[in-house]
């Protein structure tokens, strides 16, 4: 008797906890990696962006789903004629989640902190160009740059340029405080992060009361949770091979969207034989990139000709200079003095697309006489050895940052590309903020890379979002890792 009544009480507790919240103003979203802290000024992790971008934190500007810069905490701005001084007018009545008001001092603090000498901001180089920030009054900020930088308002829209409060900035890893439409509520590490509607939000109030981001790295566990209704949506579903499970499900739809996915076969331009343009071209001719697209993600995707994804506003469809031609590849290799049987190593990180692509690429290169050793690396090892130290021959990797053609002008980029013409184009591009001029220069940079072929540009791929049919407003296209929830709701 006694034990059965205990059981009934326990049963009741279990049921009560399930029925306590109205399901229509809450939503649970799946993410594929556990966020390494919730501070975007410390890591560019996709999970951090998905959970916090324009949910918890806001910057002076924001990127919309098509990659265009929109005002956010800065209501409007003007730029001086020499392109060096940005005069920002801040939104009124903005408060941080701890109640303190947003003033120009917060802008000053956040941007100077990001560019400081001891800053660990992943994009610190965005901010080192800031010479000074003057606060005329609480709601106006004048940012002076060392030299004109046309991408400045674009870079201010990134999550690591979020405006923070000096009181809470150093504790954001575990207790994030921003000005966004959602407040941080709880984080059970390894399981979920819960955000709650910010009742004092300065803008339009969010439609959902709470949003829970659940960390589900295993695609099978994630698809089970979606099928069981324990998860409402999963943006960027990591495993295309599991998607067939959702086809016949009446309550779930799979939406194919875009994101700046640029898979490349990166070549070590500082090392022989890749420092010879004929070898790089030969490798490009030796690979049938159309077949690579066919081989993965249900054959969906675009062959790339340069380092720009098709969803970028500046993207142009360039002619295919290196269509599959193994004969020509062999001839070029012979010209460059590369004997058949030359050994090269292809390293790749432990991601499905990288492994599959590497295996096919190796097979193509063996057909033109190169002997390819495949070297699978664990993710930290890839980051350390290939990306960090630039010690590799070839590697397959997808760059997913938006509009990052500027990495070809970096002194310390892992594929060691250096080209004075590209450098001059990039200087001109950053020196202007005229949109037409910038577009023209961006196209010229894309074309320059396509001719030079520092890396073999392989393909771009779509991004699949799995979600309940009744969800409205969720981003299925994106330029940066983000899942803004303020406009997301359930269909009535």
């Amino acid at each position, binding site marked *: 008797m006694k034990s059965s009544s205990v*059981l009934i009480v*326990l*049963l009741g*507790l*279990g049921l*009560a*906890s*399930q029925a306590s919240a109205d399901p229509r103003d809450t939503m649970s979203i799946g993410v594929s990696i*556990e966020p*390494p*802290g919730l501070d975007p000024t*410390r*890591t*560019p*992790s996709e999970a951090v962006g998905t959970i916090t971008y324009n949910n918890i934190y806001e910057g002076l500007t924001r990127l919309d789903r098509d990659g265009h810069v929109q005002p956010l905490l800065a209501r409007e701005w003007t730029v001086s004629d020499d392109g060096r001084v940005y005069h920002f007018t801040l939104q009124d009545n903005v408060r941080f989640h701890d109640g303190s008001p947003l003033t120009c001092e917060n802008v000053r603090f956040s941007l100077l902190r990001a560019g400081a*000498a*001891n*800053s*660990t*901001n*992943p*994009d*610190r*180089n965005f901010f080192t160009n800031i010479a000074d920030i003057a606060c005329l009054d609480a709601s106006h900020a004048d940012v002076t740059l060392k030299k004109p930088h046309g991408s400045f308002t674009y870079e201010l829209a990134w999550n690591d340029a979020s405006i923070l409060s000096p009181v809470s900035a150093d504790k954001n*890893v*575990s207790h994030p405080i921003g000005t966004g439409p959602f407040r941080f509520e709880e984080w*059970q*590490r*390894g*399981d*979920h992060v819960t955000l709650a509607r910010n009742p004092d939000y300065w803008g339009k109030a969010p439609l959902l009361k709470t949003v829970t981001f*659940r*960390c*589900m*790295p*295993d695609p*099978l*566990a*994630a698809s*089970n*949770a979606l*099928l*069981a209704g*324990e998860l409402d949506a999963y943006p960027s579903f990591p495993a295309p091979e599991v998607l067939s499970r959702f086809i016949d499900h009446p309550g779930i739809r799979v939406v194919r969207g875009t994101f700046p996915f640029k898979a490349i076969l990166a070549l070590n331009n500082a090392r022989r034989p890749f420092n010879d343009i004929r070898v790089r071209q030969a490798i490009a001719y030796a690979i049938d990139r159309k077949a690579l697209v066919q081989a993965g993600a249900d054959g969906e995707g675009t062959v790339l000709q340069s380092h720009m994804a098709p969803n970028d506003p500046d993207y142009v469809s360039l002619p295919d200079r290196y269509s599959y031609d193994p004969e020509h590849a062999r001839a070029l290799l012979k010209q460059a003095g590369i004997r058949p049987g030359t050994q090269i190593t292809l390293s790749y990180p432990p991601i499905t697309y990288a492994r599959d692509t590497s295996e096919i690429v190796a097979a193509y290169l063996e057909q033109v006489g190169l002997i390819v050793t495949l070297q699978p*690396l*664990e*993710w*930290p*090892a890839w*980051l*350390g*050895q290939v*990306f*960090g130290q630039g010690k590799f021959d070839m590697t397959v990797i997808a*760059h997913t*940052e938006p509009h*990052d053609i500027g*990495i070809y002008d970096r002194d*310390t980029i892992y594929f060691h590309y250096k080209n004075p013409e590209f450098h001059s184009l990039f200087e001109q591009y950053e020196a202007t903020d005229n949109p037409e001029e910038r577009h023209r220069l961006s196209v010229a940079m894309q074309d320059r890379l396509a001719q030079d072929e520092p890396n073999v540009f392989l393909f771009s791929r779509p991004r699949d979002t799995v979600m309940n049919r009744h969800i409205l407003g969720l981003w299925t296209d994106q330029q940066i890792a983000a899942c803004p929830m303020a406009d997301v709701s359930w269909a009535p």
Partner: protein
Amino acid sequence: MMIGVAQTVLGRISVLVVASIIVFALLAILPGDPATVMLGLDASPESIAALHHQLGLDASPVTRYFRWVVGLFHGNAGTSYVYDVPVSGLILERFQSTLPLIIFATCLALLIGLPIGSIAATRRGKRLDLALMALLQLLKSIPDFWLAMMMTFLFSLTLQWFPAGGFSGWNHGVFSALRALTLPAVALAIPQAAIIARFMRSSLIDTLEQDFIRTARAQGYSRQGVLWRVALPNAVIPVLTLIGIQLPVLVTGSIIVENVFNIPGCSKLLLEAVNQRDIPVVQNLVMLIVAGVLVLNLFLSLIIRWLDPRLAGSDA
């Protein structure tokens, strides 16, 4: 007896010291740098250097080793690189699902394995014994991740008796917590139960052939009486040793099971920490597992000494 125990304890401590050196050295030579993992593809070298300094990674390996060990003696296991919170709190939080899961699975494995093994032993060579042995061979051969997938398909998605995964802690009621742990515990327990049953069967068969069993029968004990009072307590002793040996297997098994069922436990934390090179978490967690196995073995060997005084002189 006391000297034996003291020797055993000293032996275990030296194992801990050696283990700490091996764990630290392995992590130090493992390729991959925590700072590059955290800062990602766009990081500038200055940011990486600043983070190195912040994390204390610019010190020599020997300094870092002693910093860690001295910290442990002060009860300070360090701070997680990734989460920037004390490692001890992080591990303690995760233990709330892993420890119950492993205890749950061990109890289930014993509850299933011991009776099946005993029944098979007493029906040795009969049809039931053969059928049970065939079944056990099958269960033992099933990989735990496959079993986990099949169980989720049947019990969560089709019958909807259990959640498909996740564990939201003990705050939402003991019942829902146990419900969330049931399928993972079964997935973990079944291969273990098969091993325990086979071991129990052969151990009981051995015992039943001993002279003292015949003596007991001759003294007038009934067949059932001999089995319950004499044979079973003797046959269980080797099974206890087996549980100690199987604990590391359970821990590694729980890495897969926690991932398939998406349970935020220690094993999942360990896998994530290795992938992110969160070295303070990895080294302390591995040390904790080593210590856990040693303590459990010590505890079991004490129980066995108590059950079987003949073993008092040896290190069981």
